[in-house]
């Protein structure tokens, strides 16, 4: 039966390819979306790991972690909690660099562990007011080097050094003193987040729960998954992705069903002959379903390729490559493939049933 299905597809390549393209578009959409969503999760995870902290603390129930507002003095109180080895406030400045609006500027305490852990490729840390250190990614983009002047929110900063941390946000951004960042926001007592270093041997999840109990207005984030869930925007993106996946599935299945149904109508004589020579209903249905699945597997293959390439093009087209790098993992590809197969099976069910209901005698008589 498999050879029969493949032979039929081989001899009708144009129809097979056009049908496969319907599935490919659905699968490509899904792969691109899942890849970008995973990339966003990874980016969100970078927020947690600012300054290589174990936990990031944010204001509870904000639309996005970057919109969080916390009293900077909270860091001192946190340091007194037994499980916490160190804590330091960070102020995020979004769209503060006119040369690269996607870059994030971090205001950190010069003596805090975030500033102390920076590894410099050129020059050294920003120790005084109106000094800035930049990540190697940003330095490369804007062709900056120690001694250059960088304008942050219309204020001139002298560049002291270029660092590399391996955290996308930091390497694509810049670091100034917390006081300078607070001055730019006009909120001298506030910070966006507090990065926490846990004591040795402390269980992360247990510490997170203890902090949230002790400081009810805080959300403790320790993993990329928690970071993605923490902000309403992240949740919204995940839900939107899910809705689009379901829509792609439905549209893909309808497309395959339509093509297969046309195929059944066009080939009703063939199915009538098969019934006349002893093919059972399930056997005839199996041929139609197998054709649908074969077309969908072909479409899924094309879709996986389109999705992987398309997600990168999409990120570049939107100019958000500093924030998001699509993650096309094996699980994303597997999900795309599964969606493609589901499209083939679901889309083929009704045409398969129709093929089994054809009465052989009138069809063979041309009625």
């Amino acid at each position, binding site marked *: *039966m498999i*050879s*029969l299905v493949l*032979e*039929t597809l081989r*001899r*009708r390549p144009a129809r097979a390819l056009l049908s496969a393209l319907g599935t490919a578009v659905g699968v490509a959409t899904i792969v691109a979306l899942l890849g970008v969503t995973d990339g966003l999760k990874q980016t969100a995870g970078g927020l947690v790991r600012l300054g290589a902290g174990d936990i990031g603390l944010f204001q509870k129930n904000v639309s996005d972690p970057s919109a969080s507002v916390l009293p900077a003095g909270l860091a001192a109180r946190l340091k007194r909690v037994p499980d916490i080895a160190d804590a330091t406030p960070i102020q995020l400045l979004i769209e503060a660099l006119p040369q690269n609006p996607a870059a994030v500027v971090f205001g950190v305490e010069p003596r805090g562990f975030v500033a102390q852990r920076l590894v410099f490729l050129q020059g050294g840390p920003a120790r005084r007011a109106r000094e800035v250190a930049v990540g190697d990614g940003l330095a490369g983009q804007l062709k900056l080097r120690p001694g250059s002047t960088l304008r942050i929110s219309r204020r001139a900063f002298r560049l002291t050094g270029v660092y590399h941390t391996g955290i996308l946000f930091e390497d694509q951004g810049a670091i100034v003193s917390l006081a300078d960042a607070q001055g730019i926001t006009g909120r001298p007592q506030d910070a966006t987040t507090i990065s926490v270093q846990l004591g040795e041997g402390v269980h992360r999840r247990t510490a997170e729960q203890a902090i949230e109990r002790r400081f009810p207005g805080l959300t403790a984030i320790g993993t990329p998954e928690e970071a993605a869930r923490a902000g309403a925007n992240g949740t919204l993106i995940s839900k939107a992705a899910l809705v689009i996946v379901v829509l792609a599935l439905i549209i893909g299945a309808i497309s395959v069903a339509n093509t297969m149904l046309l195929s059944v109508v066009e080939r009703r*004589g*063939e199915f009538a*002959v*098969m*019934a*006349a*020579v*002893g*093919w*059972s*209903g399930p*056997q005839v249905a199996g041929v139609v379903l197998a054709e649908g699945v074969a077309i969908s597997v072909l479409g899924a293959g094309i879709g996986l390729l389109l999705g992987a390439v398309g997600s990168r093009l999409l990120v570049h087209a939107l100019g958000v490559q500093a924030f998001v790098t699509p993650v096309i993992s094996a699980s994303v590809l597997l999900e795309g493939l599964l969606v493609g197969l589901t499209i083939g099976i679901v889309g083929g069910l009704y045409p398969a049933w129709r093929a089994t209901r054809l009465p*052989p*005698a009138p069809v*063979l*008589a041309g009625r």
Partner: protein
Amino acid sequence: MLDGVSLHLDPGEFVGLTGSSGSGKSTLLNIIGGLDRPDSGSVTVNGLDLTALRRPVAYRREVVGFVFQSHHLLPTLSVQQNVELPLVAAHVHRRERVRRARALIEKAGLAGRERADLAELSGGERQRVAIARALVHEPLLLLADEPTAALDEATAERVLEILEEARRERGMTMLAVTYDPALIGRTQRMLRLQDGALSELPAPAASTSGGPR
């Protein structure tokens, strides 16, 4: 269309059927072949009451073979794949399918054309493929609707030899709608359908009975 038709075929018998256009010949074949159901009455083949079956799939797969008026081959499949169709339905092992199909293709004078597209075949060659398909699962009963129509004399003769050989070797019963004198000459008796009623033609009339297409 058919009214009060009563027909008995003995095992191994070769019976011809004639009648005017629209007299119900194809309907009678379809009913006997399990492709259609009578409004009333019964059809028993080899002890099996077809009218008691909801879908006589196994009967069509194992007992009966069809040669249609227009050969009804699957255009996307090769000669070999078309002939194998009934064996695929019966889940016959691939090696055995190939062996049996090739043997019949050779008998039909199409050796070496197993992989050919149907588009490459003449009308007579296609009809021989259709006959090979009808015989490949070794049916007890062969129903043929004008199997030699539109064939040249030599091809028709070859087709008749294949059918006759299958009947002789396996005791296959044959019922064929025909106006072809060559085929009529080989039948053991001829029947005529007229206004839905079946009658037997006397032997001399059989060989001269023509009819409309």
